[in-house]
């Protein structure tokens, strides 16, 4: 179906080729997962399939890419629209209309199909993706998962036999991600569509995949069996790490498979207990205090009667579905929102301060927030200029921010434009900017969007380091694995109220939806991460 024949891609102003001598043959009806670190050429590989590289992006393509017997050298992407559909990462930016139905029909309209076909296809596609009850909803009113499904549906409605998706679930919470993947699974198995997708969050996807392609530095492996690929791949989900530790073969890819093998491991671990190291700090004086707080947004209470304490030197993970009030809570601590009722206070030395009523300069010395889109914080045109501006903003010695950045990221090219950086690097830059002010409370809003495992690891290390030096860290996330790795305490919000609040082990292990993979496999024992298991095995061996 898709044939790469010694394909090398070099962009116009690049020194190095982005793809080197890729030769692959993807048969029909397979769900193929492309796995690789940031910058390895995943996006380029996906975009050569429908011809965006090189027709849209410029550059030279050596070799041939043949899609359903059409060569991309002879056909522009618009000509291949009925053969290959490409879904980008951020669906909202690709919507051209206002209503779900219209968006699904738009692609077909621009291609000039006749009205009867369009109507029929719209109905079929709505059914296939479970969007029929939403058909007249405005696009802006949908949840993230629904928007992603609409984006996929609108590309699919034109009838391509191949779907290419670039990180479709990176911005979604686990439940929404599962909806999207279930839709993809359905069209592969019921309709024989070929799906090629790239994802960082392997724990959600790898058990759906039929084949895996590993890519690094522009070179790809062959089409591998998923279990084989995961056995050796440097990028793997926690489950696979556990399986390598326990030496299970073949590598299990789903929780069920792993549990079937895990009996022996559970026995070995029965006597051991995870070493402490997670201290929820309740013995100290709180650094952030919510008392019966109510916060309104557009007149409606998003947070209602919320009471919560955060303690210095701890990392707290704030979890909950999208829309539960996580961002609002963080915004209130950062002083962007004022509570309508109740109080929100931050410890300022021996006294308390209300963040919303502090002047901006004083406030940022106390509380720092890295927003959901870190690029909104950045406005300079080079990394070095951004660090210098941060030093000025917070009135600190010049070079502070740059030093912090080096520590967090291991060194970024100071002349690069911040928008040219990868997601992980941008986050690190934004974090350095905020940390230049040495706030006592650090807030992060969904930092794991688009991060690969390496960047997440560096982030986890940074946060634990900050906590060990006494900073209060509050992290809003729906990445369970990161929470398991880094948090001391977990607070779960639903509809603006606290539903669970306790030590990480207690909350994550007891909740079916929010348990990390290792916990699910080793239930009823409460292990959170592979490192804990390894440490316990090392001790008991």
């Amino acid at each position, binding site marked *: 179906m898709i044939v790469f024949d010694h394909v090398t891609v070099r962009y116009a102003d690049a020194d190095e080729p982005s793809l080197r001598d890729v030769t692959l043959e993807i048969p029909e009806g397979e769900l193929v997962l492309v796995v690789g670190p940031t910058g390895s050429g995943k996006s380029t590989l996906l975009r050569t399939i429908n011809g965006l590289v090189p027709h849209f992006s410029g550059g030279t393509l050596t070799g041939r890419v043949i899609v359903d017997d059409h060569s991309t050298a002879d056909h522009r992407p618009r000509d291949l629209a009925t053969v290959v559909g*490409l879904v980008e990462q951020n669906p909202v930016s690709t919507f051209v209309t206002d209503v779900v139905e219209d968006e699904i029909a738009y692609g077909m309209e621009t*291609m000039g199909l006749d009205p009867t076909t369009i109507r029929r296809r719209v109905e079929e596609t709505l059914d296939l993706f479970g969007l029929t009850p939403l058909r007249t909803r405005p696009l802006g009113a949908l949840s993230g998962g629904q928007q992603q499904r609409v984006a996929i549906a609108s590309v699919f409605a034109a009838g391509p036999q191949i779907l290419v998706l670039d990180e479709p679930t990176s911005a979604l919470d686990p439940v929404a991600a599962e909806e999207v993947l279930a839709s993809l699974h359905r069209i592969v198995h019921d309709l024989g569509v070929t799906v090629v997708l790239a994802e960082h969050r392997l724990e959600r996807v790898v058990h759906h995949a039929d084949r895996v392609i590993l890519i690094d530095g522009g070179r790809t492996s062959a089409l591998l069996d998923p279990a084989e690929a995961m056995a050796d791949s440097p990028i793997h989900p926690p489950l696979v790490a556990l399986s390598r530790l326990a030496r299970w073969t073949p590598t299990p890819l789903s929780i069920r498979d792993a549990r079937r093998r895990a009996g022996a491991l559970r026995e070995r671990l029965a006597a051991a207990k995870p070493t402490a190291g997670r201290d929820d700090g309740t013995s100290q004086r709180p650094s952030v205090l919510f008392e019966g707080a109510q916060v309104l947004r557009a007149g409606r209470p998003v947070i209602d009667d919320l009471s919560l304490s955060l303690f210095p030197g701890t990392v707290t993970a704030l979890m909950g579905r999208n829309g539960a009030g996580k961002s609002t809570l963080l915004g209130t601590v950062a002083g962007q929102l004022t509570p309508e009722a109740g109080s929100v206070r931050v410890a300022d030395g021996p006294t308390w301060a209300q963040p919303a009523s502090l002047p901006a300069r004083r406030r*940022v010395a106390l509380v720092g927030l890295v927003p959901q889109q870190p690029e909104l914080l950045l406005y300079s045109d080079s990394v070095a200029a951004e660090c210098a501006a941060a030093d000025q903003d917070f009135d600190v010695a010049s070079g502070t921010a740059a030093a912090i950045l080096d520590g967090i990221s291991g060194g970024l090219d100071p002349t690069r434009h911040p928008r040219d950086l990868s997601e992980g690097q941008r986050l690190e830059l934004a974090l350095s900017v905020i940390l230049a002010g040495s706030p006592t409370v650090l807030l992060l809003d969904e930092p794991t969007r688009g991060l690969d495992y390496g960047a997440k690891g560096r982030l986890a290390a940074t946060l634990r380091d900050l906590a060990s030096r006494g900073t209060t860290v509050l992290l809003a996330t729906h990445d369970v694995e990161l929470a398991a790795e880094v948090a001391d305490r977990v607070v779960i919000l639903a509809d603006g109220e606290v539903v669970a609040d306790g030590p990480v082990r207690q909350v994550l292990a007891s909740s079916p939806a929010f348990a990390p993979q290792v916990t699910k496999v080793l239930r009823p024992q409460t292990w959170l991460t592979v490192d804990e298991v390894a440490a316990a095995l090392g001790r008991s061996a």
Partner: protein
Amino acid sequence: MSARERLQHPAAWWLWGLGLATAASRTTNPMVLLLIIGVCILVVSERRDPSAPNPLMAFVVIGAMVVMFRLVLTVILGNGIRGETVLFTLPRIPLPEWASFLRIGGRVSLESLLYALYDALRLAAILACIGAANALASPRRLLRYLPATLYDVGTAIVVGLTFAPQLLSDARAVRSARALRGHDGRGIRELARLAVPVLEAAFARSLGLAASMESRGYGRAVRTTPRGRRTASVLAVIGTLGVLAGLYGLLDSSVGGVLGLPLLVIGVVVAGASLAIGASRDGRSGHRRDPWTWTETLTVICGAVPGGVLVVASAQGWTGVVPLPRAEPPPLPVLTVVAVLVAALPAWFTPRPRRALA
């Protein structure tokens, strides 16, 4: 009678509004003009497009401001009209020699005020008709009916309309993000700091949109041939030249002024033809076209009736169509009033607009 809830074809309402505006432009009878404004308000309140904010009030306010403006200027600077009924007299301010054509202060007569009022009211009525057309058929819906030569321009407008609200909400987000770095977002310098992330984000998004449009087959349905384009270009230049020449002829009534109007009309037709010829759209697309049914035709007729009647009335000089400014109520031309009331009929027989679903 009216079918299931739907929005009428936008051209129907715009033609209706233009007909009524033509009627308003032919008369200065204040009763008729106020009646026209009333008809506009009535029809809009019954049948306006609920998905967009109502701009009619803005247009009416502008009209009211024009009336105020004219009246005040007339009071201060006087008018060419000499009237008998003097209302009051302002002190006359003497002016130097070079400004001798100006007259500040002096007698203010009722007739002069009435003249200014009638004239300004006409402008206000025309604006009300245009505002009503805006409210009944949002101009955004007209984008769908642009000729194929303007397909790309139309898409750019749609992209602009989609991005603008996002730009505004991004600006708000950046403003609160500025606070996270210790600034409170005031001052002109902050504007640059604000504009840069917002525009960078917009451009990044737009590139993604362009890639997505390209991948979804944008541009397949519209075909241009080099020959068609050349023909269109030639027609455009010739048509524009014709319009220029025609206008010149019209303005300067002495030099071949007879040629003015026909030349103008030919020029307009030729230029319009260039729009129609340059590209052809694949006729099969457009599954969401508004249908043109009898309600649309009748709506246009209801707008054309007052337009036609008043054109005839002003050409033939019926009494009361252009009343003299005298200190008495102007005569009421019954036929024109009836014609204007016909324009109110679409408030009833046209289909109700579909309410926007939550």
